[in-house]
C-alpha cells in the first residue's frame, strides 16, 4: 500500500509538469498577446492607447523574451507561491481569485447537494420499479434538465424570476448588499438569487447520476445476498438502504477526483449568463484577453486539484472496497 502511494505521488510530478506545459501552450496559441488584444480592444472603441505604459509593461513582464523563458519564469514563480500579475485587473492573481473561490465553492456545494437530493430518490425508484410508468416519468423529468441548453434556461429563469418575484437580474444578491457585512436581509437576498444557478446546473447533473445509480443498484439487486435477505424477512426498505445502496455509492468515491475541481471551477457557461462573481466568467475573460498569468495559474490550480483528487479517490476506493485491494484493480 505504502509503495503504491509513494509511486503515485512520484508519478504526479511529471504529470503536473506536462499539464503546465500544455496549459502554457494553450494560452499562447491564439495569435498575439495580452497587450495586442488590449490595444485592439481600445482602438476598436476609438479610444487612444497610452503606448508608453504598454511598452513599459511589456518590457517589465518579459513579453519580448523567448517563449521558453516566459514559461520558466511563470512555472518557477508558481513554485514559490507567486502566481503572477493580472493585466486585466491590474492586481496580483491571488487577489483577483480570492473572494471568487469562496462563492464558487458555495454555489457548487449547494448544487451538488441539490443534485443528490433529486437524483437519489429517482434513481432508487427507477431501479426498484424498472420500466413502470413512474420510472419513465421521473427519468423524463431528470433528463429534461440535461437536455435543455443551460444558457437559454438560465436567461429564461432570470426573466421569470424578475417578472414574478421581482428578483433583480443576475448576480448573487441585490446590488446594495455587495461588499457589505452579512445580515439577515443579505442572506435572504442571496437565497432569492442562488436558486437559479443551482437549479440550472443541478438539473443537468441529475440525469447522469440517476443513470449511474440505477445501473449500479440494478447490478447489486441481482446479487445473492439480497435474495437471502429478502428470504430471511428483512423489511424491503431496510434491505435496500443498508446494503445494495451503500455499495452502489461506490462510484461516488471514484468521482471525488472530478468533483473537487468542478467545485472550484463551477459551470462557466451558466455563471457567465447569470453574471455571477465566480471563477467561471473570470477564467473565460482571462482566456479571451490572453491574461496569461491569471488564466495559466488558475488552470494550473484546477489541474492540480484534479490530479490530487484522482489520487485521493483511488486511495479512498482502495481503502473502502476490499475487492480492489485484493484484486489490485478497479471494478469498473
Amino acid at each position, binding site marked *: 500500500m505504502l509503495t503504491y502511494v509513494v509511486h503515485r505521488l512520484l508519478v504526479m510530478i511529471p504529470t503536473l509538469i506536462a499539464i503546465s506545459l500544455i*496549459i502554457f501552450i494553450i494560452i499562447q*496559441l491564439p495569435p498575439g498577446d495580452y497587450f495586442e488584444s488590449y490595444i485592439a480592444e481600445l482602438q476598436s472603441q476609438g479610444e487612444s492607447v497610452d503606448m508608453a505604459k504598454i511598452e513599459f509593461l511589456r518590457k517589465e513582464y518579459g513579453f519580448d523574451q523567448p517563449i521558453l523563458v516566459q514559461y520558466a519564469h511563470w512555472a518557477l514563480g508558481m513554485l514559490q507561491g507567486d502566481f503572477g500579475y493580472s493585466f486585466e485587473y491590474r492586481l496580483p492573481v491571488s487577489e483577483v481569485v480570492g473572494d471568487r473561490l469562496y462563492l464558487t465553492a458555495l454555489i457548487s456545494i449547494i448544487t451538488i447537494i441539490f443534485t443528490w437530493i433529486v437524483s437519489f430518490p429517482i434513481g432508487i425508484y427507477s431501479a426498484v420499479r424498472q420500466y413502470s410508468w413512474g420510472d*419513465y416519468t421521473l*427519468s423524463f423529468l431528470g433528463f429534461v434538465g*440535461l*437536455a435543455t441548453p443551460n444558457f437559454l434556461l438560465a436567461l429564461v429563469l432570470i426573466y421569470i424570476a424578475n417578472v414574478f418575484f421581482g428578483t433583480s437580474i443576475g448576480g448573487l444578491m441585490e446590488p446594495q448588499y455587495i461588499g457589505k457585512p452579512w445580515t439577515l436581509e443579505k442572506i435572504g437576498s442571496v437565497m432569492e438569487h442562488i436558486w437559479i444557478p443551482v437549479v440550472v446546473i443541478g438539473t443537468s447533473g441529475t440525469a447522469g447520476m440517476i443513470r449511474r445509480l440505477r445501473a449500479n443498484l440494478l447490478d447489486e439487486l441481482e446479487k445473492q445476498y439480497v435474495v437471502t435477505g429478502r428470504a430471511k424477512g428483512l423489511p424491503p426498505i431496510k434491505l435496500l438502504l443498508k446494503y445494495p445502496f451503500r455499495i452502489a455509492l461506490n462510484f461516488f468515491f471514484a468521482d471525488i477526483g472530478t468533483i473537487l475541481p468542478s467545485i472550484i471551477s463551477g459551470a462557466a*457557461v451558466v455563471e457567465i449568463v447569470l453574471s455571477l462573481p465566480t471563477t467561471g466568467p473570470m477564467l473565460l475573460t482571462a482566456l479571451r484577453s490572453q491574461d496569461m498569468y491569471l488564466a495559466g495559474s488558475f488552470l494550473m490550480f484546477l489541474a492540480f486539484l*484534479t490530479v490530487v483528487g484522482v489520487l485521493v479517490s483511488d486511495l479512498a476506493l482502495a481503502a473502502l472496497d476490499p475487492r480492489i485491494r485484493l484484486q489490485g484493480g478497479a471494478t469498473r
Partner: protein
Amino acid sequence: MSVAQGGADAGQARHYVSQEPFDPHSVEQLAPEQERYYMASQWQLMWWKLRRHRVAVFCGILLLFMYGSVLVSEILAPYQLHSRHTNYIYSPPQSVHLFHDGEFIGPFVYGWSYRLDMETLRRNYSEDRSTVHRLRFLCLGDKYDFWGVIPGRFHLVCPPEGATLFLLGTDRLGRDMLSRIIYGARISLTIGLIGITISFSLGLVIGGMAGYYGGRIDSVVQRVIEIFRSFPELPLWMALSAILPVTWSPILIYFGITAILGLLDWTGLARAVRSKLLSLREEDYCTAAMLMGARPRRIIARHLLPGFMSHLIASATLSIPTMILGETALSFLGLGLRPPITSWGVLLNEAQNINVVALYPWLMLPVVPVIVLILAFNFFGDGLRDAADPYR
C-alpha cells in the same frame, strides 16, 4: 447398445439398461423457438430484447424520422433556407385554420400584416379575417439546390400564392423559423454522428491497447487520460477553436468542430474499454487463442471486442447528446459555428438575449427539437444498453 452384465460379482444388483435404440435428441427436444433462441447471434438477441422495451423502440423510430428528415430537408421546409421577407420581420407564428365562417375549407391562413407602433417601435401583427389563403401541398415553391447540387422547387407544403406561411414565426430578417429549424437539423444531427465516430475510434484503439498490453503502456495511457480529464472544457475548446484557420470554408470549419468535440470525448470510452479488456483477457478463451498463436490484433478484434461491443455501442449512443449540447455551448461562447451556417446551436445563440425572451419568445422554439432529440437518444441508448446486458 448392450452393456456387459454383472461381471465378476454375481451378488450385486443388476443395472437395467434398455436395449432399444435411443435417440438423444428425442428427449431434449427443443421447441422451434428455443432452437432459434440458442442459435441466434448476439445481435439478434439484442434486437429481440430491445423490441420488448416499448419506449426505446418509440424513441428509435423517432430518431429514424429525424435523421430521415435530414435527407429531404429542402422538401420538408416551406421556404428555402436563406429566403428573407423584409416585410415580415419578427412575425409571431401564424395559426392554421380549418373552418372559415362555419364552413370546412381545408387548411388555410388568413391575410397577415403588421402596423408599426412608432412609440415603441414595435410591429404589431394581426390577421385579416376577410382574406382566405389555402395552403398548397406537394407543390412548387421556393427555389433551392437539393443538397447544394441539384436545383429544384418541389416542397411538401408551400405558402399560398401571395401570402405567407410562418408556422413558427420569423426572425429579425424575416426568415421563416420552421424552415431554419428543419435545415438546422442537418448540421446538428450529423455533427453528433461524425464526432462520435472519431471519439469511438480513438477510444477503442487507445483503450484497447492499454487494456490488452497492460503494464507500461497502460500506465502511460492512464496518465494521458488523466491529463485530458483534468482540463476544464473551456480552455481546451478555446484553444482548439483558435487553431482552426480562419481561411477555411464553412464546411471545413464544421468538420473541424466535430473533430474537436470528438477529440475531447474519447476518454470515457477508452476507460470503459480498458477496464473491460483488463478483466476479459484473463478468460480462458483468450488464453486459448493466445496459445494457438493468434496475433494480439486478432485476439482483440475477433474474440474480446464482440464480448462487449454492444455495451460500447450503447455508451456511444449516450455520448451523442453530449456532442449536440457541446455544439450549442460552443456557439454560445462564440467558438463554434457561425452564421451563415445554420444549426440549432446558431439559432439558440441568436435567441440568447433579453429581446427574445421578453418580446419574441417564438425564437426560442429551436430548443424543443434539441430536447426531443436528446431525450430520444437517452431513452434509446438506455434501452440498447439494457438489451446488450448479458447478465439479465
